[in-house]
């Protein structure tokens, strides 16, 4: 083991006899510097803007109607009540059905899970084919797809109604899953294509030399390497599909109506005065699933975005 003390004396030259005066060590940092005040000041103001509506929702959902009518929306509840939550979840009425959001919740799950899985499966395979197995015209189809991302959904409703009718799957869950897959395809395919293109090409070449085919390379090599982008896709689709109202209501029958439709019904079925507290509770309940997904995997989201969206 080299001897540090010896090193200092023999090798680093003679330390001149300057006294160790003046600044030494780390530059002292004031916690309350103008820079920090600006920085955190701005951040806190921004955070307040983003949190305000959430605060309003939560506070209001915990108040009783009389309190809402009297006080302002920002004042905290004097008397906390969970009645609105119970009502929103279980007893709010739409027409003759008085089971609140609960029915819609399971429908949403039944719609979201297969749609997310289906759309991600299709888009990831597409992205993979576009990044690694280009064929004549593949870029053209892709361009059409990307431009398709700009087309307002309303424009496409009618043609899709016709297509689904011709396929005989209008009003079925399958039909809705297909619709979600179609509209998720442009942006997801773009993400996956960029991500797979950013993976080292040599890996793909190595696998081909090893004799792996299209699907083997995809399933055994590419997919296991792509957690971040799958997380991004998952988050985007879960939020997108869970929050969807238009397709859920246009392309299914009432027994499959998702939670958002129930939410719309509760919010828009005004019985006398608007029951703001119930509406807020219903709103929070509806947004809960995507919110939880965000809180749980937000960090991966940023990483995945960096990997899939920014590298062009």
């Amino acid at each position, binding site marked *: 083991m080299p001897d540090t003390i010896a090193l200092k004396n023999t090798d680093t030259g003679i330390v001149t006899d300057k006294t160790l005066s003046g600044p030494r060590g780390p530059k002292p940092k004031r916690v309350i510097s103008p820079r920090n005040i600006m920085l955190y000041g701005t951040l806190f103001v921004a955070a307040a803007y983003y949190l305000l509506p959430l605060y309003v929702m939560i506070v209001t959902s915990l108040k009783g109607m009389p309190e809402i009518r009297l006080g302002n929306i920002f004042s905290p509840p004097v008397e906390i009540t969970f009645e609105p939550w119970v009502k929103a979840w279980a007893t709010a009425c739409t027409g003759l059905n008085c089971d609140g959001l609960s029915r819609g919740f399971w429908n949403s799950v039944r719609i979201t899970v297969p749609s997310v899985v289906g759309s991600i499966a299709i888009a990831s395979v597409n992205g993979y084919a576009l990044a690694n197995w280009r064929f004549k015209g593949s870029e053209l189809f892709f361009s059409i797809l990307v431009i398709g991302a700009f087309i307002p959904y309303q424009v496409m409703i009618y043609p899709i109604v016709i297509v689904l009718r011709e396929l005989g799957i209008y009003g079925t869950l399958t039909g809705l899953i297909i619709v979600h897959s179609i509209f998720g395809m442009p942006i997801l395919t773009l993400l996956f294509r960029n991500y797979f293109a950013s993976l*080292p090409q*040599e890996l793909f*070449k*190595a696998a081909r*030399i*090893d*004799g*792996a085919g299209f699907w083997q390379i995809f399933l*055994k090599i590419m997919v296991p390497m792509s957690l971040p982008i799958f997380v991004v896709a998952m988050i985007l689709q879960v939020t997108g599909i869970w929050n969807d109202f238009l397709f859920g209501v246009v392309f299914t029958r009432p027994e499959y109506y998702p939670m958002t439709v129930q939410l719309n019904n509760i919010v828009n079925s005004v019985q006398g005065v608007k029951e703001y507290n119930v509406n807020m509770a219903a709103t929070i309940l509806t947004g809960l699933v995507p919110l939880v997904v965000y809180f749980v995997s937000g960090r991966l989201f940023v990483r995945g975005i960096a990997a899939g969206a920014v590298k062009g």
Partner: protein
Amino acid sequence: MNSSVSIKDLSLNFGAVSVLKDLNLEINDGEFLVLLGSSGCGKSTLLNCIAGLLDASDGQIFIKGKNVTWEEPKDRGIGMVFQSYALYPQMTVEKNLSFGLQVAKIPQPEIDKRVARASEILQIQPLLKRKPAELSGGQRQRVAIGRALVRDVDVFLFDEPLSNLDAKLRSELRVEIKRLHQSLKNTMIYVTHDQIEALTLADRIAIMKSGIIQQLADPTTIYNRPRNLFVAGFIGSPSMNFLRGEITKQGEQTFFTANGVNFSVADYHTPEVLQAGRKVILGVRPEHVKVNENLGAEVHDATVDIEEPMGADNLLWLKHAGHTMSVRINGARRFNPGSAVKLGFDMSLASIFDAETELRL
């Protein structure tokens, strides 16, 4: 020797860009062929064509006498090692080695045997259970070689396998690859832009420029008898010194004259081709210039511009008759910048090129 890989009139275009042009190459069985060239000259492209990872625009490729031009990579009997290692990151080393064999549905005992053999040869047995992320660069590259090894193929393709390693590891693995070739005796095609690798590893070197092979020969020939100016300048570090001038005759004697200074070319290995009046370029390697010692008959004056001690060697940059000239001398001999020295040239080891065709005379 019969040819192991044979490439006939191979062309490859990316859209309008022609990367390889009517390339012909015969590689003997068991030969270690190095493709050497600067970045972007088409080395990887050629290798990928041989591997079947790129479709040739025209021409044919034969491996072991079989036309494989349209075969899938896996059916060509080749193994390939990449610069970036290209190990499957989520698989253990063992799985990396056996993946291709499992895909090919080779029975497990056979797979185990091959993996065991490869890992023994490459001494990676202790690493088998690790994942690539847990390996050092050198270990990764060893695993990558192992992956080619287990495929039990006739031809190994290496695409700059050592470029990502630091100098020390690079020289170590270079020796190992050489040793591997000596024991396996497979055909190996090795792409690099590092001339040291090329010179030390190759049986023959193919020097490429813009998709065309400039010279194909063994390392000694390439170093000592470069076919043209490009090859001469490309090989050797520091580069060969080039002096632009012409051949003159003074009485019986033939000289190379540049900037009014005469150099006798009597010792040149083919003095007969040097007609007077011909514009030529004289090339002398730094180690063939003598300083103050063993000067020979002809002596020139020069001053030291810069000295670059490199340990075992010492590199001098001399100013001499308007040129800058690099000279390699023993590391123990030191000169101060600005000091005056005497120069001698070993003309028997020099090269003279036609100034126009740039071909060696």
